[in-house]
Structure formats: C-alpha cells, structure tokens
C-alpha cells in the first residue's frame, strides 16, 4: 500500500477514536464540573512531556504521571483546604505551565526545533502508530464499560452531586476514576493533537452536546468529536497544516453548526406543532 495512504488511513482511524473518546469523556467531565480540572491535567501532561523531552525520558509515561499527579494535587487542595476545585485547578495549571516553559527553555535548541517538540506543542499526524490507536481504543472501551457498569451511581452524581453524597454514593472514587481515565487519554493524545489544542477536542463537543440535547449526550458528544477529528485530519492533509490546529478549528465549527442545526430543527418543529392546532385554539 502507498505509504502516504497508509498514514492517512491510520490518522483517520486515530482521529475517529480520539474524537469519540474525547467527546464521550468531555460530556462526563463537563457535567461533573471537572472541565477546569481536565484543563489542568492537560497542562500537567505538557509539563511532564517537556521534562521527559529535556531529560530524554519516555514522553507518554511522564506526561501520564504528571497528568495524574496534577489531578491528585488539585483534589488534595480542594478537600484539605476547602478551596473550590476550579480555583485549585487554576493554581496548579499556572504551576505546571511554568514548569513546562522552564523545561522547554532549558532544552537544547537543536532538540527544541525537532519534530518531537512540535508534536508535543501542536501535534502531528505521524505520531499515531497502530499501537497507540489500539491503546486509545482500549481506554475508550474501559471508559464505556465503566460508565455502563456504574450507570446507577454516575447518573445519581450527574443529577445532583450533594444528593448523591447524602444517599451514600461514593462520589470521590468516581471523580478519581474519571481523572485517571482522562490522564491516560491525554498522555497519548498529546503527541497527536498537541498539548495546546487537545483541550478543545474535549471541551467543544461536550459543550455542544450538553446544549443540544437532554438525551444520550455522551453519544452526541462522541459523534461530534469523531466527525471533528476526521474533518481536522482531512483538512490537515489537504492543506499541509498542523493537525492539532485543524482539529481544534473543525471542532469549533462542527460544534457551532450542530448547535445551530438543532436549534433550527426545534424552532421548525415548534412552529409545525403550533400550526397544527386549529385557529382559535392557539395560545
């Protein structure tokens, strides 16, 4: 098979799995109000990757370790000092961004201009090997299985966190589970989408899905995410642009278009309903 075609097909698969995973995960993070935490985890992962890059260590492992550590530090600050999770996340985000910048600053110029550095910052189509796609698919399978197995508890937490706690649901353990899954996904996706833009793939579809529908928001988010991912890869290939940026742009555009389309659909449906009511009986 043609080498370029093979890379293209691999990238499309990667974009599909990545988009599905981020969209699905993003809806839960958004409804659990963990979006800022996700943001801090993503930047913690960049710090890990930058340090790995500086010392020649494994980028995925260190970004995973840093991502998880950031999340655990945020949870510790939130619980121990009764600081809002969002505020704690912003503190840790600033800290990890500073660490990342110092690590990049200390990295020899020759290494900094290499492909690996650009992969971490704005992503690369070449970064996704078959093994990494399989790993992402495994993370996605774990996430779906987890949300199915613990559906009762998760629904209860998503409906009202305090009430779920008052009824004896272990909210903390499920929060940590989501953080671990997020950190795993982010550490792998860092090279593909790039640390600076990865967050848009988690955030965009989630916001669109939660504003579009009451039902099956996770599936809607995953669908928007996978369409955005595939579109981003195609645009990136066609115009030879950084894949992270094209995925971020396609995510924004797809999410906005999907929201507009669904609003128009409901407006039309409401108009049809009102028109079907005989004149004189209309409200």
């Amino acid at each position, binding site marked *: 098979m043609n080498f370029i075609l093979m890379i293209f097909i691999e990238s499309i698969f990667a974009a599909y799995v990545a988009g599905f995973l981020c969209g699905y995960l993003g809806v839960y993070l958004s409804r659990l109000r963990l979006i800022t935490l996700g943001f801090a985890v993503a930047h913690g992962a960049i710090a890990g990757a930058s340090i790995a890059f500086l010392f020649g260590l494994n980028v995925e492992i260190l970004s995973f370790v840093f991502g998880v550590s950031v999340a655990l530090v945020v949870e510790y600050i939130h619980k121990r000092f009764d600081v809002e999770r969002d505020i704690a996340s912003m503190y840790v985000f600033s800290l990890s961004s500073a660490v990342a910048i110092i690590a990049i600053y200390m990295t020899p110029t020759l290494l900094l201009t290499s492909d690996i550095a650009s992969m971490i910052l704005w992503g690369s189509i070449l970064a996704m090997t078959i093994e990494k796609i399989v790993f992402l698919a495994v993370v996605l399978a774990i996430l779906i299985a987890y949300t199915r*197995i613990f559906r009762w508890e998760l*629904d*209860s937490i998503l409906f009202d966190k*305090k009430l779920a706690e008052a*009824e*004896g649901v272990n909210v903390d353990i499920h929060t940590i589970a989501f953080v671990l899954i997020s950190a795993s996904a982010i550490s792998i996706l860092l090279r593909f989408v790039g640390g600076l833009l990865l967050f848009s793939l988690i955030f965009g579809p989630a916001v669109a899905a939660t504003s579009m529908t*009451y039902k099956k928001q996770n599936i809607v988010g995953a669908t928007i995410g996978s369409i955005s991912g595939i579109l981003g890869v195609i645009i990136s290939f066609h115009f030879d642009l950084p894949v992270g940026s094209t995925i971020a742009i396609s995510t924004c555009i797809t999410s906005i278009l999907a929201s507009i389309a669904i609003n128009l659909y409901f407006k039309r449906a409401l108009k049809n309903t009102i028109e079907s009511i005989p004149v004189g009986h209309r409200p």
Partner: protein
Amino acid sequence: MGIYAESAVFLERAMYAVEMEDVYTAYPKTSDAALRGIDLTVPREKLVLITGPNGAGKTTLLELILGFLRPIRGRLRVLGYEMPKYSRLVRRKCSYVMQDFMKPYNTPYTAREVILMGLAPYKAPFEKISREEQKLLDFLLEFLDIGGLLDKPFGTLSGGQQQRVMLARALLRRPEMLLLDEPFSSIDADSRIEFAHLLDDIRRRYGMTILVVSHDVSPILGYTDIIVRLRNGRVVDVE
C-alpha cells in the same frame, strides 16, 4: 465484646434514631460555632419537627446528622452509629429531601429515572429494579399521585411535582430515617396540610423516623411527636 454488651448496643441502636450530647459544630473556615451544646435524643419511629427563625441552625442540624459537618465537641450517634466515622453507612440508611430542590428545564432525566437513581448505592452493576421495589414504586406513585408524571422530563415539572418525585425517590429507598428540609416551601397553601397528613401516614405505614425542618409549623403541628425549637445555634425548647 460479650453477648450482653452486644445485645445492649443492639437495643440502643433499636431505640434511638439520633443521640446528641453537648454537640458543637462549625462550617469550614469559620471561627464561630454554627450549633452549640446541642443535647437531643430522638427515639425511633417519631415525627420530629425542627423549627426556629432563619439562621437558627435547622439545616445545619440535618447536615450534621448526615455527616456533612463534623462535631468539633461532644458526641453524636445516628441510628446507633458513631458519627462522622460511619457517615456513609448512615447515609445509606437515611433519605434526604433537600430544601428548594428545583432543577432547570434541561435536566436530562425523566421523573422515573430520578426516582430510580435513589437506589444507586444498593445496586450491583447491571442490576435491575426488583419485583418488590417495583411493587413499592407502583404504590408510591399512586400514594403521591405522580403516576402521570413518570415519563416527563424532570425539569419540566412544577416545584410541587418535583418535590413529590423527590419524596418518592426518598421512600423507595426504604430508609430508617427520612430527613426533610423545608418540605412545605414549594407546595401551595392548600396542599400543605394534605402533605403533612401524607408524612404522618408514611411514618405509621413504614415505621420510620421523620425529621422535618420547617419554619412554617402550622401544617404539621397536629402530627408531630416532638417539636425542637432552635435559636442562634442552640436548642431552646423541646416539647
């Protein structure tokens, strides 16, 4: 522990729903105690009204009982269990209906789903509602007159309807103790007495302890076994 000591503990658990001895509690990052020197014993299967002016500590008392706040002094036992050590266990045995519990129209759950979620702590993965639970649910739907609301989105229900759905959720859990925070606030004046009668009926039928926090005492006054009056974080009167 010997058999007599175990029996004594069992009997004590069987007798009291709440035991507080000189309990003080405070909200995090405050220098003032929200509840001070509370001495209160609530026997099981009683309907208790906790009343007092705004800021008296009524909701704080419920939060303390459920383990959201820790006693900074004194001793607290709920359903015979030391708190806050056994908070999660106690929460599983209680049901809580929160104050002004209103969800927006875009809440992505139907009334049925909201009711069934209350069973989350007792359900194994993929476990469905049992025949017994279904029977109880059918009864509650009729009892609370919410049968027609089951498939409607929860957020589109009125305040009173949402409150009834939350009560069905709380009762489906078959709790040993039911805690209601200002249950009359979203019910119109005509339905308040009917609701108070319903609570009394529930208590008699299921033999559960019910703690009702309300500044509006008139609807429930005729049904209460104990009235606890709070002011400035202290119990000023128990009758």
